[in-house]
């Protein structure tokens, strides 16, 4: 026989309705999250409202540090650079990744695993290693310039990382190289989950490879594209190591990015408040962009 009491307890709640005990289950994770993420973030927000050199007593700054983000060209520029870098860190890898995935999933390539591994390899390497390697490739007599000379394009050779116009794209290309493999692997996995019938139906209706890509593959990969965009945007905006290793923001300040500026101000020029403001602004920017992506691309409603 059923216990009437417990039956009554069950009746009061719809199945699956949240219960207070749930909070107990997430408590351990929440405590860690709060201690190592929420609390430091709150501290950063607070620091962004003071002028502080990291040692002597801080003085309240009001919105000074945030106003500087808009009025000080030395702070505006890094954000402009970061947004431009997103073309290289996010747009290009996704585009190239889609192309590669479409090619690889259509044609039976011999040694497919090999190519996949090679293209994914940059993801596995530490960014420091990537930075050091590319620094030597892009050096005045590095691999890239040597190759250009060898094929008769010597007039194009230049000190890539020391060129005011080319340093930013040069660092960007490194990001493209790193990000493409990840995007491709995501898309390949996604493409395998698109039902074969859809392709057969499309071919029956007389669709060519291009039409097939836009009508079947692309819509089918929508969730993967959203993931790829989110990951690459976050990685692109957070980009610190590559800049630190390759150019330190130079030549002049033509490759400075917000994440590098945070480090530089907090540790090198004793402007902790300003560094915190840049950090908070960067967080907000990343948040806004990723929410936008998940709304637009993934079609997720609030």
């Amino acid at each position: 026989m059923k216990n009437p009491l417990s039956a009554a307890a069950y009746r009061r709640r719809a199945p699956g309705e949240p219960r207070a005990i749930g909070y107990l289950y997430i408590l351990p994770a929440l405590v860690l999250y709060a201690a190592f993420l929420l609390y430091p973030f709150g501290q950063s927000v607070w620091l962004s409202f003071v002028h502080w050199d990291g040692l002597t007593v801080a003085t309240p700054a009001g919105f000074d540090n945030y106003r500087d983000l808009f009025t000080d060209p030395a702070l505006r520029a890094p954000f402009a650079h970061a947004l431009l870098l997103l073309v290289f860190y996010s747009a290009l890898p996704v585009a190239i990744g889609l192309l590669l995935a479409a090619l690889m999933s259509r044609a039976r390539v011999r040694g497919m695993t090999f190519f996949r591994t090679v293209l994914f390899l940059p993801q596995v390497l530490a960014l420091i290693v990537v930075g050091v390697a590319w620094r030597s490739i892009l050096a005045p007599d590095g691999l890239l310039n040597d190759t250009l000379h060898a094929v008769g394009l010597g007039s194009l050779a230049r000190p890539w990382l020391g060129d005011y116009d080319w340093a930013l794209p040069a660092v960007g290309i490194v990001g493209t190289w790193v990000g493409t493999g990840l995007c491709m692997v995501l898309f390949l996995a996604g493409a395998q989950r698109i039902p074969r019938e859809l392709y057969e139906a499309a071919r029956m209706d007389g669709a060519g490879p291009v039409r097939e890509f836009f009508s079947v593959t692309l819509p089918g990969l929508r969730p993967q594209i959203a993931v790829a965009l989110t990951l690459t945007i976050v990685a692109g905006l957070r980009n610190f190591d590559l800049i630190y290793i390759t150019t330190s923001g130079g030549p002049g300040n033509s490759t400075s990015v917000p994440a590098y500026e945070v480090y530089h101000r907090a540790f090198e020029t004793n402007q902790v408040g300003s560094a915190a403001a840049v950090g908070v602004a960067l967080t907000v920017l990343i948040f806004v962009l990723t929410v936008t992506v998940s709304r637009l691309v993934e079609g997720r409603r609030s």
Partner: protein
Amino acid sequence: MGFPSTGSRRVRRRAVPILLTAGLALLATACVPGTDGSQAYGPGNGPAVAVPDPAKAGKVTLTVWDQEIRGGTNGELQQLNKEFERKYPNVKIKRVARSFNDLKTTLKLALSGNNPPDVVQANQGYPDMVSFVQAGLLAPLDNYAGVYAWNTRYPNTLLNLNRVSADGTDFGTGRLYGISQTGEYIGVYYNKDVLAKAGVKPPKTWGEFTASLSRLKDRGKLPIQFGNLDKYPAIHTFGVLQDQLAAAEVRDTVLGRGTGFDTTATKDAAATLADWTKRGYLPKGSNGLGYDDAAKKFSSGDGGYLLTGTWLLADLKKAMGDKLGLMTPPPASAGGAPVTTGGQGLAWSITSRSRHPEVAAAYLDFITNKHAADVMTEHGVLPAVPGAAAERVDPDTVDGQMIAGWKRLSAADGLVPYLDYSSPTFFDTITAALQGVISGKTSPEKFAATLQQDYGAFMKKQRERHAATPAPAEPK
């Protein structure tokens, strides 16, 4: 006497918009980060002391943070630490060695934490040493300087670079907050083979030097190897050029009492740097070449000269052997007094909250005295005050050349401090501007104006500070 209260700076809250006042005021009073300098009353500040005897200090662990991780300096310091422990068996040295950058980024936190090290290496200039003094984290050493005769051991030029004014605003004057072990200067390294093949003798005068550049170029050699991707090397190259034109004025300017940077010397030196790049005396695209890469190229025979610091001597010598020569930038007339950019290694300082300041002072003396100088020489390191061992080094070797150059510079008072000491933001300003000059993007006029803008703004701030707090009498 303690520091002028920094508390006065805490009450500028009226400027904050009303809406924020409540929240920020709470934060500002409740848990404002940072110290107020109240710990400034350091051990070296009391009445005159006798020579401390660490042997009587009981069991002591001395925590030392330094950045001497490179071959020569690391070896020299390890040996001296061991000898100090042998001399005073009751003292144990706990050494924490990190790279310069790692030390720079962690030292601030360590000093302001609850358990600071006893002895630290502090970088001279506003961002580090002056900030530490302002926060009352370093102990003034003037009394120890008297007891141990550091005042006479070092030339004044060097000693001044380790001074900060008592109110923690000015660099290069006031109380002594550290002493340095090593000396360093920007010299002209040359590859004897490359010069000989181009029929160039090591120049004796600046005129011969510049003439040799075009000769090397004509013979198809790169005259000066140079890589400026890391931004800072150009400070040294530019510094050498500027020193040739106005060494004394530049030194005064860096120490905050000169004519500033909008001068013909600044413009002419910048113009020379741009001109050398255009003529190919410096490699094309030096902004894209790393500092270490340039040194490697020079040591493998690519380039007649390399203008950089004595800290690179050991590495270059290992790769080049007898082919390597070193001289101070040649003076205007043969045998004249040399001038160049240079100074000394990072200052060794005692923290104000060290529980064993006297042992720390004895340690500082031990690693900088005559015996230490000899140990440094044996390890191929240039001591700030060369001792007996330095006399025995063969003057024809590159080590001998380095020591002789240092002695001549010290005797002639020919050292000009690093330009980035000029203001807290000067490193950023000058490195970015110099990359512009080298690429031809920034004109010498614009360059001088950019430097002066940074420097002038800082000088104005300094004057306002001085007006706000009348400087206390400086102890001599």
